[in-house]
């Protein structure tokens, strides 16, 4: 059995649910209380892939910033994947998303990027999809850290992409 270790950084504006996704994936837990993340918290989860690889996903849950360029570069250093999270209930968190993604692509080429809209449980999907289309948001998946919808799938997708 081969072992692999990959760093995945959760990035995006504050209050979008990065820590909630992190907690849902690591501990399968959720809290309604918002507690802003200070700096970075790091946890590891090992996923056993179908091809026999034991993948250590080292998740860096970073503090939120309105502009990704404000994030501490040392947190992003050495990442194998970025999960850029935005809040489906706050247009401000996705209206300029393409600029944020371009920043990541330009400064961290060849790093996998997943764009994720969170808080799916609080919105009307049809309506929110129209809004995302209006703002030209090419998301990878929509999740609810609260209900767990699409959370495991998101991390499994990343694991597959990183091990292929």
């Amino acid at each position, binding site marked *: 059995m081969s072992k692999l*270790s990959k*760093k995945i950084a959760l990035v995006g504006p*504050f*209050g979008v649910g990065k820590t909630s996704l992190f907690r849902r994936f690591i501990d399968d837990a959720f809290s309604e209380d*918002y*507690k*802003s993340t*200070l*700096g*970075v*918290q*790091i*946890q*590891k989860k090992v996923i056993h892939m179908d091809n026999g690889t034991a993948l*250590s996903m*080292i998740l860096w849950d970073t*503090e*939120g910033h309105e502009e990704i360029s404000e994030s*501490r570069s*040392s*947190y992003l*250093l*050495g990442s194998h994947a970025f999960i850029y999270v935005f*809040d489906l*209930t*706050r*247009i*401000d*968190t996705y209206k300029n998303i393409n600029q944020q993604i371009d920043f990541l692509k330009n400064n961290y080429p060849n790093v996998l990027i997943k764009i994720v809209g969170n808080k799916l449980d609080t919105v009307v999907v049809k*309506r929110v999809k129209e809004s995302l289309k209006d703002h030209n948001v090419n998301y990878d998946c929509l999740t609810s850290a609260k209900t767990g919808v699409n959370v495991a799938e998101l991390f499994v997708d990343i694991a597959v992409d990183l091990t292929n």
Partner: protein
Amino acid sequence: MDNLNKKKFNDKVQLITISHNGVVSFTDSNLFNSVVVGDLIYELHPFFEIIKSLLSTYTPANNEFSFPCVHLTMGSASKERICDVNITVELAEIHVVIFDYTTTYKELNKISQERNESIIKNQELVFSNKLLLEKESFKNDFIANINHEVSTPITSIKGFLDLLKKTDLSYEQEELIQIILRESEHLERIFSDMLDLSKIEMGAFKLLEEPFDLIELIDSIVESYKHIAKENALEFKVDIDTKLNAKMIGDKTRIYQIINNLLNNSFKYTEKGFVKFKVSKKGGKYKKQIVQFEIEDSGIGIDKENQATIFEAFVQHNDKGEGSGLGLHVVKSLVHLMKGTVEVESELGKGTKFILDVRLRHDIADNEKKKAPNVKLKAPKSGRYRVLLVENKRSTQYLITRLLLNQGCFFVDVVSSAEEAIKAIENRTYDLLILDIKLTGMSGFDLALKIRKDYADEFIKDIPILGISAIKTLNIENLCAINGIDSFLAKPFSEELLVGKITKLFKRKGKQYS
């Protein structure tokens, strides 16, 4: 070195030295005492896995890396510390310096937490407000569309019932027609209330300011309800103040609607006894006058706790299960727009009294005005008026044709589309075009504009056009005027309204009438 560190940095710093393969070769125990020489640092905390990538990227000139504000826990008994971690990669070994700033960072976090919460709440409010506005707009569009869809069949139903009433009927058939008419009117009122409410909520509702005869209005209301009182074996007491000024300025239709809703309510919830309608002059100066309407009944009444909510939308405090629960809400909203007041006094089982104060303007100039003579449509010398009806709904085609033929002075040609209408007007001269605005293909507006602009022949370009539609947007009459339509009639309409509109239009356009 351990003692030196303790002395110098007051137990807030831990120094760890590791080999390039991650084995701890030196450590003090100031912060995390579970770390011991020989440990593999990658197993102490996942943060240290970062060292692997640093080893592959560092250069002698760029060998210092700083990681501020990292949450670290090492060893099961260790508490979480928020630390700045500096890593220096050298050829032989790696130095890790951990600074514990937990207290400072936690203090800072309070400020950031408050700031973030405030911004998030604000952004969520903006979003939910936007959603609410969208929902409201959707609801209003929906109501307007539904109203349009319902108005057309109601027009047909009522129109055909009117025609049916004029045929030979048995007593039972007449009674049944009366019931169907009453129910159609009830349905019409519900939709009309819904549309009014939606307009009021959008702020798109405008009250008219036009002269009207208050006494005539009151008389017409009394006449209608006398019949209802008789049908329901109720006493209808009427008390009209003789000091009331007849000539007023205001929105007659809406005053009628308010009183009609209140009286309708009283009759609905009174099985025996009386309904009283009192109108009095309450006060006012010079041109302004407050007119008080009181509608009292001996019906089922409303208990005290429900009186506060009786004017809210979709509220019904009875088990009769009739009505939409909108009537009284419309009353309150209209009275509010008129800057008037409406109050309710009621006792369960004994009855209800609504007291309505409406501010109106006294039309002083009216005394000199002369009433326009009633115009009755007569056949022209040439024989009959030729009308082209452009309507795509078969039932409405049939209804209007029958209503016009009943007058005895019209020939009616019927087409279903604007394209057919163009062929017809190019081949025959018409005295009137009755045009449904919502046609499939070319719209009624487009057809009217084409007639006004594309033809030199005055028999075509000057043809009087009466627009008809169930669309009841606020500016429909303006839109008609802009597009060359002379007059507009909203569905549903009665025979009298249709003929009245045509008569006025002919008069305006100088057609023969007497």
